[in-house]
């Protein structure tokens, strides 16, 4: 008897305790070549952006008005903008803003949207109807006025930007999640959880949400580019970042205006954005598969 207990505790210690879906997902993700390439590129981009102040030869605000917009050269690998500022430097610094906005705002949207949608879908009935009509109302309110008001009420800062973007993007997420949860609610394993006596919150967060991660991840990868472009629009309205700081969205929108004269001002920021988004997309698909234990074995 004592021997059995012994082995039990031993093996219990040897066992990776609390191996979660997340750790498992990571193991599975590592096997996905495309996703790892995406992750690699993304990691590279993030590292470069974070290290920008230490590795960039120019400052993002450093002007050379007499040089003006110049094509790529040895001194300026990606050329300069109309102020003679080094484009590579500006892209790297812009990446800090775009990535931050992209990730944080999307995270806000994700958090709010997923919880909201899951609750509406799980609880159902009248609560669901009211919650979803609320979403309808938010959809219909004039976004522009909303933003202008935010600007007045809170002043302007980046945090607010995330809030504003999150406030818009969570709506669709909530809808998608709700739909998924509604069908999940009928599944027997949810009934099993109820019969165990699990409270509704535990059921939603332990049993329901992990099972809607697939569509959520996919929609998230679609949300990030939208968020990055929305940031440019909000900055344009005066809510976001201010010059001389820039972001990919802003660089692109400026680049559009002079795409004939100075095409590099459009092409390179566009490439940076696309490359990142493609990596994200592959990573997203990889994550979707990784979070689905079934997908790992063919």
């Amino acid at each position: 008897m004592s021997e059995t207990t012994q082995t039990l505790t031993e093996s219990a210690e040897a066992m990776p305790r609390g191996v979660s879906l997340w750790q498992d997902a990571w193991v599975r993700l590592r096997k996905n070549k495309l996703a790892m390439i995406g992750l690699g590129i993304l990691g590279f981009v993030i590292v470069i952006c974070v290290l920008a102040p230490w590795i960039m030869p120019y400052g993002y605000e450093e002007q050379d008005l007499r040089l003006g917009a110049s094509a790529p050269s040895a001194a300026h690998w990606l050329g300069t903008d109309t102020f003679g500022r080094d484009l590579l430097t500006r892209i790297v610094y812009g990446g800090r803003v775009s990535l931050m906005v992209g990730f944080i705002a999307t995270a806000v949207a994700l958090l709010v949207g997923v919880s909201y949608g899951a609750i509406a879908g799980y609880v159902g009935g009248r609560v669901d109807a009211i919650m979803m009509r609320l979403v309808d109302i938010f959809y219909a309110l004039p976004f522009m006025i909303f933003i202008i008001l935010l600007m007045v009420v809170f002043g302007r800062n980046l945090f607010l930007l995330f809030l504003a973007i999150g406030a818009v993007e969570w709506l669709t997420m909530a809808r998608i999640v709700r739909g998924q949860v509604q069908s999940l609610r009928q599944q027997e394993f949810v009934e099993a959880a109820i019969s165990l006596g699990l409270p509704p919150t535990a059921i939603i967060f332990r049993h329901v949400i992990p099972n809607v991660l697939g569509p959520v991840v996919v929609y998230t990868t679609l949300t990030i580019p939208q968020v990055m472009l929305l940031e440019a629009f909000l900055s344009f309205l005066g809510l976001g970042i201010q010059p001389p700081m820039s972001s990919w969205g802003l660089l692109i929108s400026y680049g559009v205006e002079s795409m004939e004269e100075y095409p590099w001002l459009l092409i390179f920021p566009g490439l940076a954005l696309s490359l990142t988004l493609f990596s994200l997309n592959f990573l997203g698909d990889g994550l979707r598969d990784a979070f689905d234990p079934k997908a790992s074995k063919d």
Partner: protein
Amino acid sequence: MTTRISRLPRGGRNWLVLAVLALLVGCSGGEDGGGSSGLTRVEQGNLDGVLHFGNGVEPEGLDPHIVTGVAENKIVSALFEGLVAKHPETLEPEPGVAESWEIAEDGKLYTFHLRQDARWTNGDAVTAEDFVWSWKRILTPELGAQYNYNLFSVVNAERYANGEINDFDLVGVKALDDYTLQVQLNSPTPYFLQLLDHYSTFPVHRPTIEEFGSISDRLSPWARVGNIVGNGAFTLTEWQINSHVRVEKNPNYWNADNIRLNAIVYYPTENLVTEDRMYRDGQLHHTQEIVLDKIPVYQQEIPEQVKITPWLGTYFYMFNTTRPPFDDVRVRKALAMTVDRDLLVETVMQGIVEPAYALVPPDTLGYFPPKTFDYDPERARELLAEAGYPDGEGFPAFDVLYNTQESHRRLAVALQQMWASELNIPAQLVNQEWKVYLENQDNMNYDVSRRGWIGDYVDPNTFLDMYVTDGGNNKTGFSSERYDEIILREAPATLDREARYELYREAETLLMESMAILPIYTYSTKHLTHPSVKGKPSNIMDHVNFNHIWLDPTVTTE
């Protein structure tokens, strides 16, 4: 074969229909085939005498007493005619509805003799009584006409407009007979004749207005296609909001024989890039703007189509002189002196504008402003040190407010960098949506703000009267008794032009010594104009007199 098709799965048939529909999109489009005849709109217009005019923004309306914008002006002045007109190049007054006029010695009494062949588009004669009633209308307080102040130099006009008197007979405008109009002014107003070409002083057709509403009704639809009755060389035939406004030659116009355009089509071209593409695609004769980056390219490729002309306007920044640190004139001067205007003009502005060191543009009807300072970073640093910020130390971060627009952004970015590198002071750029920007200016809720001013008429007064104490457009907190004295009392009473200009120079020196504003450059207008457009000389008011324009179909860009 029929069985085969019927065997096609039903779902498949549906999708087939959709696919065909999708293809149809490619073939759909408008009915009048500008493209099908092989001619561009401009080429076709040249043959038909139709001018395609890029007009900037969509007109809010066409009621001369209500509208306020430049775009509206371009259309209203084709539909209506005031007492006088302006020569398209020199801007000298020339006869409009008034054939001739006399000005009394004291400069305060004007007598206009109206031409007897002037007609409304419905055939009614244009009479002196029409003008009296029209001026009564714009001065009627309930109408809320923003530009009623253009007539405030007329005796009692301001009191009537502010509701202080109710009897319009007390106002200094009288119809002596059907074709004689007499106007009594408070003081000799040298630019009064110029104002009579402003749409706020245009006559409107009383029966039409009263048919659709009362004299004070802003919301009546009288100025719409089918309703409107005007007295200009053209008459309104089409108006689709956000698409175009079309006016056609008015056969009842007294000088119709000499009007060579058959029609003008105005396009709202808010998006500069779109306007540029429309011009290049042969859809426009004339653009309202040129994208800044394109100017060097066009100056190289199509120099004869690029029309860049000095404009009666100044681009400047203003300081909130009630807020530290900008309540210190030394700080304001330091900032003004570190702006390298020559460099800015040459690089950021592509060399198309002139640097400005004062408010009034040089050579405004012979007026030259004083130059009280120059680019001098060395002196600027000294001033800043005197103000307590040696080498920018301790200088608080301050906001530079500007409304969202590409050219404003560019300038602000350059200035920010100049201040940072020369004075080591941290400017933070704040762009705001237009109305928010206006509200913050009105509430003096800013540190430094971008501003611009375009003259209403060619006279220094149109700029300088902004900065009287508590003037509605002041917004800087600038206040000087002497300044007010000159602008409000001495200059208006001075008949001699040189003596008046001397007073203005004194006032402007006061303004610039206090550096409440930071002038940057004198505006230019930038247009692309098709070479077939004739009779449209450039002028400093960007004034277009459509009566003189004609199209030469023999000229092509090829």
